[in-house]
C-alpha cells in the first residue's frame, strides 16, 4: 500500500462518536436495507406457491430453529462481553468469552445444518422445489396481473423479435419463500 496512506490521528471527530462507528452504523443501514428487501420479497411471494411443501408443512417442529436462534443471539452478547473485557485489559475473561462466542457460532452452524438437512432430504425442499400448475398460470397469474403480463409480452416482442420465436413454456419450479427465508 502506498506510503501516503493516511490516518486521522489528531483530527478529532466532529461527532461524539468516532468515524469508525459512524461507518459501521452506515454499513448496518445498508444491511438493513438489503434484508428488508428480502423480507418484503418473502411477504410478497408467501402463499403464492400452490403446491407443497408450504412453510407450515416444514416448520411443524421449530425447536431446532428456536435453539439455533437463541445460540446466535447469545453469541452477540458474549462477543460484546469479550470486547468489553479486552478493552479493560482482562485477558483471561476476554479469552473465555471469545471462545464461548466461537462455540456458540459453531453450535448455531450445526443447528442450521441439521435444519437444512431435514428440509432438503426429508421434505425435498430445495430452491427449485415447488411445482406450479399451468392451469394456475393461466387462471391465476393472468387474471391477477393481466396488464403486467401483457406488458412483459410487449417488451419482449419490441426488443427481441416476434413472439413466434419464443421458446416453449417450461415447467415452473419455485421455492422462493424458502430461499428468502434462508437468507434472512
Amino acid at each position, binding site marked *: *500500500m502506498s506510503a501516503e496512506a493516511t490516518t*486521522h490521528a489528531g483530527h478529532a471527530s466532529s461527532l461524539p462518536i468516532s*468515524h469508525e462507528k459512524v461507518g459501521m452504523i452506515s454499513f448496518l443501514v*445498508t444491511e438493513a436495507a438489503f434484508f428488508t428487501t428480502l423480507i418484503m420479497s418473502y411477504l410478497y*411471494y408467501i402463499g403464492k406457491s400452490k403446491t407443497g411443501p408450504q412453510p407450515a408443512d416444514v416448520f411443524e417442529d421449530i425447536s431446532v430453529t428456536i435453539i439455533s436462534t437463541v445460540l446466535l443471539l447469545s453469541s452477540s452478547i458474549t462477543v460484546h462481553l469479550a470486547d468489553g473485557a479486552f478493552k479493560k485489559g482482562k485477558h483471561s475473561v476476554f479469552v473465555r468469552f471469545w471462545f464461548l462466542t466461537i462455540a456458540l457460532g459453531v453450535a448455531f452452524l450445526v443447528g442450521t445444518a441439521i435444519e437444512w438437512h431435514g428440509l432438503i432430504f426429508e421434505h425435498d425442499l430445495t430452491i427449485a422445489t415447488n411445482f406450479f400448475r399451468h392451469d394456475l398460470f393461466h387462471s391465476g397469474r393472468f387474471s391477477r396481473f393481466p*396488464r403486467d403480463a401483457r406488458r*412483459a409480452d410487449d417488451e419482449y416482442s419490441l426488443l*427481441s423479435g416476434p413472439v413466434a420465436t419464443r421458446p416453449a413454456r417450461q415447467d415452473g419450479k419455485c421455492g422462493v419463500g424458502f430461499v428468502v427465508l434462508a437468507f434472512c
Partner: protein
Amino acid sequence: MAIAEPESAIVSRPLPSILHEWVTTVDHKKLGIMYIIAAFIFLVIGGIEAALMRWQLIRPAEEILSPDTFNQLFTMHGTTMIFFVVMPLLIGMANYVVPLMIGARDMAFPRLNAFSFWLYLFGAIFTYYSFIAGGAPSIGWFAYAPLTEKAFSRDSSTDYWILGLLISGIGTVGGGVNFIATILCLRAPGMKLSKVPLFVWIILWTAFLIVVAFPPFTAAQIMLLFDRHLGSHFFDTQSPGASALFWQHLFWFFGHPEVYILALPAFGMISEVIPVFSRKVIFGYESVAMATAGIGFISLGVWAHHMFSVGMSRPLDIYFSGATFLIAVPTGIKMFNWLATMYGGKIILKTPMLFALGFLSMFLIGGLTGIMLAAQPVTEAVTDSYFVVAHFHYVAFGGILFAIMAGFYYWFPKMTGKILNESLGVWNFWFLLVGFNLTFGPMHISGILGMPRRVYTYHMFRPEWEIWNLLSTLGVLVQAIAFAIFFWNIYVSLRWGEPAGDDPWDAWTLEWATTSPPPVYNFETVPEVKSRRPLWDLKHPDDPDWKFEHF
C-alpha cells in the same frame, strides 16, 4: 501554506514508478482523478454507442445495424452513462473536493475508498467484457423481467450485466458509507453541519440515498441470478406466482432515488458555482439545505411513477402521481434560490457559469416535462416513446452533465494547477448547448407523434418521424465536435495552460485555501471555521461573515 511536490520531480520519475503510485494510492485526490478519467473513457464509449444508434435511425429502413446489435447498444449506452459515467464523475469530483472543503486530510476510510474505486472499474470492465464473450446484454438498462430470464436470455450476456453492476454497486455503497463517515466526523473545528458548503451537505444526502437505495437493487440482482442459475422463479412469468412486476418495483425503488443520486450532487455543484460567479452569498442556504433533505426523503416514495402503464390500482396511481408532483416543490425551491442568487449579482460569464446557466435552462425543460409525465394519463399516452427519452436526457444530460461540466471547469484548476482555456471553454459550451438541443429537442416531437423508443428502425410510411430523426442525428455530430473541443482543451491546458494559482476564482470555500494541486496532506494546519465562507473571513478580516451568522 502547504507546499506541493515540485512538478519536475514527478515528471522525471520512471513510468512504472508513477503507475505503481497511482495503482496503489489511497489518496482521495488521486482516486478522485482516476474516477474522473475512467468515467471520461466510458463517456467516449457510451457516446460512440449513442452515435451508432443515431446513425442507424437517421432515415427510415436504414440497415447499418442489425436489430440485435441495436438492442445491445441501447442497453450498454444506458447502463454505461448511468453507472459508469455520470455516477463515477460525481463520486470522483466529490472524492476530490469534499475532504478539502471540510478541512479533512482524507476520506474517513482511505483504503475502502480505493477498494470502492477498483470495484467500480472492474465492474465496468466486467460488464464490457460481455462484448468479447459472445455479445453484450440486450435487455435495456432497467432489465425488465422476464426478458432477463434464462428462457429469453440464454447466453451469458445478462449475467455479465448482473454481476458487473453488482460488483460496481458494492463499490458505490462503500463510497456512500465513506462519505457519511467523512462528512459527519472529519469536519474542521468550528464547521458545524449548518456551516458546511452546500455541495458537502448535498453529498451527505446523496450518500444517505446510496446506502438506502442500492442494497435493494443488489438483492434484486441476486434473486435474478438465482432465477437464471439455481432454478428459482422470482420474476419468471412463465411460472405461476412469479412476478415480472415485482422486479419493476425492486428496480425502480432503487432506480428513482438513483436519479437523485445523480441529480443532487449536480445541484450541489451549481450551488457552489453560481454564488462565486455572481459574487453573492447563496440566497436561502437553509431552504436549499432543507429542500435537499425533502428531495432525499420524497425520492424514496415515488418509484412507481415509472410503472403507471403496467396497470396498478387507481389509489396507487394517484399516490405516486401526487408524490411525484410533490417532489417538484423542493426542486423548484432550489431553482428559485439559484435565480435569486444571481439576481442583483455581479455575474461573471466564465465557462463554469456558462455551463451553470445551461444547466438551469435545460434542467428546467427536463423538470417541466417531468411534471407532465407525473400525470398518469400523460404517461399512458407517451410511455415508451421518444418523448420519455427526450425528458430524461434533458434531466440527465442537459441538467446533470451540464452541471458536471460547470463543476469540472470550476475545480480543474484545483486538481491540476492549470486553468482550462477560456476560449475553448466557450466554444465547448455553445457547441454542446446547440448539439444537445438539436439532438434531444426533436425527440419531444417524434415521441408525441408516436415514435416508440428502442426500435432499431422505422418504416417509410411514417414520413413525419423522418425529419426529427434526421435532426437528432445531426445534433450528435455537433455534440461530438463539442466533446472533441473539451478533450482538446484538457490536453492543451495541461500542456500549455496558464498556472491557476491557489484561488483563481476568488472563491470562499476551504479547498481554495490550499495549493493547486494540494499536497498529499491537504492542509498544513487544520483551519478553524467560523462561518459558511471561511476563506472570505480569512481574506476580509475587517468584514467577516461570522459577524452576521447566528447559528
